[in-house]
């Protein structure tokens, strides 16, 4: 039972809108899990269900073997949450806010909060509404790690912040990961921070996880191929895993996952004038999976 979190068949409807259709995944300690999805794909919904803030329509969630249900206070035993929009009580002072949080969490680590907070260098007596968005994020981070969580749920917390602020935030997460072996569920639609830290990647699309794979595999197995033809380019490629296909006179450009030598030799057996194969960044991979192509393949 080394799974920290086990989610099985999770679904969430809002009225007739099916936001999450069928999600199953497990998280282990000490690893960073990226949940990539466009805006509106249900990342925040997933985070809120995990925190017991809203009920799931179907499915089971187990955190350290115990069920997470709507309204349960399981988060107190070890889930930290940093949402996109801080829900802080603006009129509260910084110190009051931390004291307020400390009462919710039995494992509150006051010494750690003090030392983390001191490194930030802003006034404990400041009212939260006077803080910048970056400072609110830092405060949210202090409160989240103060709870000494086993799992840290990040719901696009750096969205809209400048690069130095985002990097400082990421550095804090990295230190926490190294010191405490926290598992991190990092939901975002922005790839740049994720690309530096992600161990395992999920892509959320159409209410399902269309990709569930170790990040290194993903990088090794995805390619953009450009094929040139003497005459007309064919309508499609004799390959599994063509995620997207762009066609121009005499040219086909495809994003392929999973890519291997067999795929390459299949393509080379076509009557081509030229073939180019290049690796992809996470940004390209993400676009390949959720891009505008009408039929979405399901890859598992």
């Amino acid at each position: 039972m080394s799974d920290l979190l086990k989610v099985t068949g999770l679904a969430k409807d809002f009225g007739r809108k099916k936001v999450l259709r069928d999600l199953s995944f497990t998280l282990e300690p000490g690893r960073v899990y990226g949940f990539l999805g466009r805006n509106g794909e249900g990342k925040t919904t997933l985070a809120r269900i995990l925190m017991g803030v809203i009920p799931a329509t179907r499915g089971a969630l187990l955190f350290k073997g115990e069920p997470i249900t709507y309204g349960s206070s399981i988060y107190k035993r070890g889930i930290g949450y940093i949402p996109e929009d801080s829900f802080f009580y603006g009129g509260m002072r910084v110190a009051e806010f931390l004291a307020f949080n400390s009462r919710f969490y039995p494992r509150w680590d006051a010494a750690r909060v003090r030392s983390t907070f001191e490194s930030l260098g802003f006034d404990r007596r400041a009212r939260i509404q006077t803080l910048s968005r970056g400072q609110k994020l830092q405060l949210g981070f202090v409160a989240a790690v103060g709870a000494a969580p086993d799992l840290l749920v990040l719901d696009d917390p750096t969205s809209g912040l400048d690069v130095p602020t985002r990097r400082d935030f990421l550095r804090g997460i990295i230190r926490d990961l190294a010191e405490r072996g926290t598992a991190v569920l990092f939901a975002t639609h922005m790839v740049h921070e994720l690309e530096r830290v992600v161990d395992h990647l999920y892509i959320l699309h159409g209410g399902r996880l269309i990709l569930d794979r170790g990040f290194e595999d993903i990088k090794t197995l995805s390619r953009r191929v450009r094929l040139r033809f003497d005459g007309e380019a064919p309508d499609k490629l004799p390959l599994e895993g063509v995620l997207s296909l762009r066609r121009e006179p005499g040219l086909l450009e495809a994003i392929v996952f999973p890519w291997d030598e067999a795929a390459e030799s299949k393509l080379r057996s076509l009557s081509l004038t030229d073939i180019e194969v290049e690796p992809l960044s996470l940004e390209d991979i993400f676009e390949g999976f959720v891009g505008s192509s009408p039929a979405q393949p399901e890859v598992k």
Partner: protein
Amino acid sequence: MIPIDPTSFIPLYEQVKSGLRREIALGSYKPGSPLPSIRDLAAALLINPNTVARAYGELERDGLITTRKGRGCFVSEDFGTLPGKDTVKRLDGIFETAVREARKTGAEPSEIRKVFEDRLRSVFAEPGKRRTS
């Protein structure tokens, strides 16, 4: 400083490994001297500590570094006694890494040689030659 390019398809742990190899070959870390802790290097490079731990683990297996319980990682003492002190050996250490990385791009030797020679020319054409950093 170890260059990290998260968009490269070279896995990050390989980038850390080759970066450390280069720093050690260049003498930035001397035989027997301590290496940054996993936590500090991860925070400095803004990458996952698991990635740094993996790079350290593989370098240890290669005998380049050693771990002392509770004290962290060190450049192996006998690294300096390996034939590596003269310039040729140092260059060999640098280029072995570079060529291995280059091969992973799928480039042919002729292409790698061309890029290398272009770079060699352009660097030596700079006023005030670039020295080891």
